[in-house]
């Protein structure tokens, strides 16, 4: 029991220390460029949490990130690296908006859920392609999903320009009744774009936690991820689990895209490159140690960095470029958590010896 407690302690220490070290490095970078780090971070915190509007925006930004992070964690539990979350999110965004603008006269009670489900399915199928190829032909899901990111990008841009509009860069807004925006919520949050996606994110987090820990399917997915051979020995269907986990992972990424399309922007526009949201979602899942609660916290942190960072140039004169470096350095330490783990072990090992000598 004691060693288990110690293990969870280390598990918690690592992400917290990652963030602290990232903030310290960020401060050093700001100092190096001649800016005041305290003022910088102050304006960041203000910009993220300083008013109802900023809080609303932070929550708005965090919602799809959390859902996409959960998507990554499910594929990851089954032993797959779904790097195509961006493409899957983009497909979800595209299809949900497409469905919504195609039926402007249908009641919101039908149009809203149908559009959401269509978007989720689009993301699920996009990831499912990689799952099926992996299960039946043994192709690497990493390569396939990277390629599908580009395919999604260019298919989306083509469809916006040639099918959804007449060579325009953005579609019309989705009908009012299909939007996830909620007036009372926006007003509560000082007119920010926070929307029903926030509640969707909360519900999905709980559902994913129940699915992974309480259901037979979740048990199978975890088993396959931890030991595919023993899972085969126990009669689990590996192909089914590979496809299922990718399908769910992509579906959640698609849902993240739906939140962007039907909540944040209420339309879809031509993308200059593969959207970052998928990669950020991956980082959120890794920082959150693939645990639903961890993902919620890391999603909120990412949102605070991004939304708060946007206020730094105005609030403290730190230019956007430096803000991005600061954010990147925090993410870098998240990625380098092996290093931190190494030092923690070294440190606690030494402490053991000292205690013994006394």
């Amino acid at each position: 029991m004691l060693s288990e407690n110690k293990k969870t302690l280390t598990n918690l220490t690592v992400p917290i220390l990652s963030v602290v070290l990232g903030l310290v490095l960020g401060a050093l970078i700001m100092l190096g460029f001649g800016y005041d780090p305290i003022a910088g971070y102050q304006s960041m915190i203000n910009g993220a949490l300083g008013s109802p509007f900023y809080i609303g925006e932070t929550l708005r930004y965090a919602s799809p990130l959390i859902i996409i992070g959960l998507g990554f964690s499910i594929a990851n539990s089954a032993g797959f690296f779904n790097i195509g979350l961006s493409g899957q999110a983009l497909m979800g965004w595209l299809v949900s908006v497409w469905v919504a603008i195609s039926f402007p006269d249908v009641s919101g009670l039908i149009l809203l859920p149908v559009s959401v489900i269509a978007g989720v399915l689009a993301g699920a199928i996009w990831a499912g392609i990689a799952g099926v190829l992996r299960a039946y032909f043994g192709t690497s899901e990493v390569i396939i999903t990277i390629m599908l990111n580009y395919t999604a990008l260019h298919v989306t841009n083509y469809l916006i320009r040639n099918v959804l509009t007449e060579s325009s860069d953005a579609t019309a807004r989705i009908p009012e009744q299909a939007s996830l925006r909620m007036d009372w919520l926006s007003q509560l949050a000082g007119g920010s774009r926070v929307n029903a996606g926030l509640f969707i994110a909360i519900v999905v987090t709980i559902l994913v936690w129940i699915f992974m820990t309480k259901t037979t399917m979740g048990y199978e997915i975890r088993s396959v991820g931890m030991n595919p051979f023993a899972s085969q020995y126990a009669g689990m269907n590996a192909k089914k689990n590979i496809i299922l986990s990718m399908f769910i992972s992509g579906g959640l990424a698609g849902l993240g895209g739906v939140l962007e399309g039907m909540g944040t922007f209420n339309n879809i526009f031509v993308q200059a490159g593969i959207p970052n949201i998928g990669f950020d979602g991956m980082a959120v899942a890794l920082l959150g140690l693939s645990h639903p609660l961890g993902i919620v916290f890391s999603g909120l942190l990412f949102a605070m960095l991004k939304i708060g960072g946007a206020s730094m140039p105005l609030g403290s004169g730190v230019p956007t470029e430096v803000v991005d470096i600061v954010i990147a350095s925090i993410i870098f330490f998240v990625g380098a958590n092996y290093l931190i783990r190494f030092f923690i072990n070294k440190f606690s090992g030494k402490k053991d010896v000292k205690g013994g000598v006394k």
Partner: protein
Amino acid sequence: MPDTANVIEMRGITKQFGSFKANDNINLTVKKGEVHALLGENGAGKSTLMNILSGLLEPTSGEIYVNGEKVHITSPSASSRLGIGMVHQHFMLVDKFTITENIILGTEKTKLGFLERREAQQEIKELSERYGLFVDPSAKVESVSVGMQQRAEILKTLYRGNDILILDEPTAVLTPQEITELMDILRSLTKEGKSIIIITHKIEEIKAVADRCTVIRRGKSVDTVDVKTTSQQELADLMVGRSVSFKVDKTPAQPKEPVLTIKNLVVKENRGLEAVKDLSLEVRAGEILGIAGIDGNGQSELIHAITGLTKVESGTITLEGKEIQNLPPRVITETGLGHIPEDRHKHGLILPMTIYENMALQTYYKEPFSKNNFLNKEAMQKSARKLIEEYDVRTQSENSTAESLSGGNQQKAIIAREISRQPKFLIAAQPTRGLDVGAIEYIHRNLVEQRDNGKAVLLMSFELDEVMNVSDRIAVMYEGKIVGIVDPREVTEQELGLLMAGSSLEKAKALESQSGKESANVK
């Protein structure tokens, strides 16, 4: 007279993990030029002690002297500088590298940044000839036998100039021939003045090769004895702390109807060669059929084919009257199969998962463990607690991970899971590999109990003793075929050995009686 200076002296070594003392005030002295055995049950603390000596762990308290000087060993490289080299149970080799590259890894000699490969190869050749450690220096590790990999590991320590060698369970992975070779190598090493510490729980091997033996039980050093003057029984009793029996108590088998029938089975291994060739076999209710043979003669493929883990090329396998070849593993399991797999870490357990999750691995999808696709954690835990109690699995709780169990307890957990399902047919593949006598005794008793309950048991083992002691009939497998079925009460170990090496039954009998006569003539 050999030089009796102590090369290693460990005094009062204690290593504490949390509240658990893995080593508790252990004393160990190793003399120059001796083979010193470290005997103890699984989880007794042998490996912890040696990990301290090789610098992987630091002791909580205690002192270490190497060649009479007090030292602090803080890392494996510090240990190596003191002349201590360790050959781990799981080899530390890079599969894609050649043996030469592996041996010089970490101590490469270079000239202008280029490897001095030829010189290294020459040096390795000399070392290997001097100690009879035959290796192919230019072969890649992935393509050579386990025995050669081990010799490469030993060469690695010699190449670094180490003269105190620690071997952790060196025979666990070797065939009987390779074990004999290893014993010869150990003797030639000590002749050259090297000192060897060998960690093992196999008492015969200690009798065969060791000079002195320190027995460790539950983290404490119990005694250090002279091997020559101590009997096997005494060593076993010291290790377990009570009197153990080597003989398997059993009444003659009462075989009934066939439970498993295999006809003309052909199985290909993953390179596409036939590993099982036109094999036919029958296992009856109420008997233990032993499969003897040297590793790599198609035993694993045969078992994987029966259990549905490998595709069957042709032929039929009938279990309880139902043809099961090429059916999914779950269907076969539900037809009435229990399977204690050969590789408990690969197939038997999901190590990072909890014990209760592992114990439900074959039944999680059925009531009461699962209802409407939801797991019933409490039911799983309750059942696991019962099995832990019943099968004496030593663990803190059913919520600990399978990883945290010692090898013997991991095997007990698997056996509990497989036997408690009451399958009509039970496969036990290498069920006691790497376990100590106490656990072996327990497992053998369980297999016999299953037989007495009218179950059919198929026992596959590379250990002759085990096959001879436990089985009611022995099928000898050689190059994918059954070359003979013998009665363990009528066959000698020599005859069995010859069969395993490919002789026919008649030939084996003839050779045996001939050599018997010769030895009689000599007398």
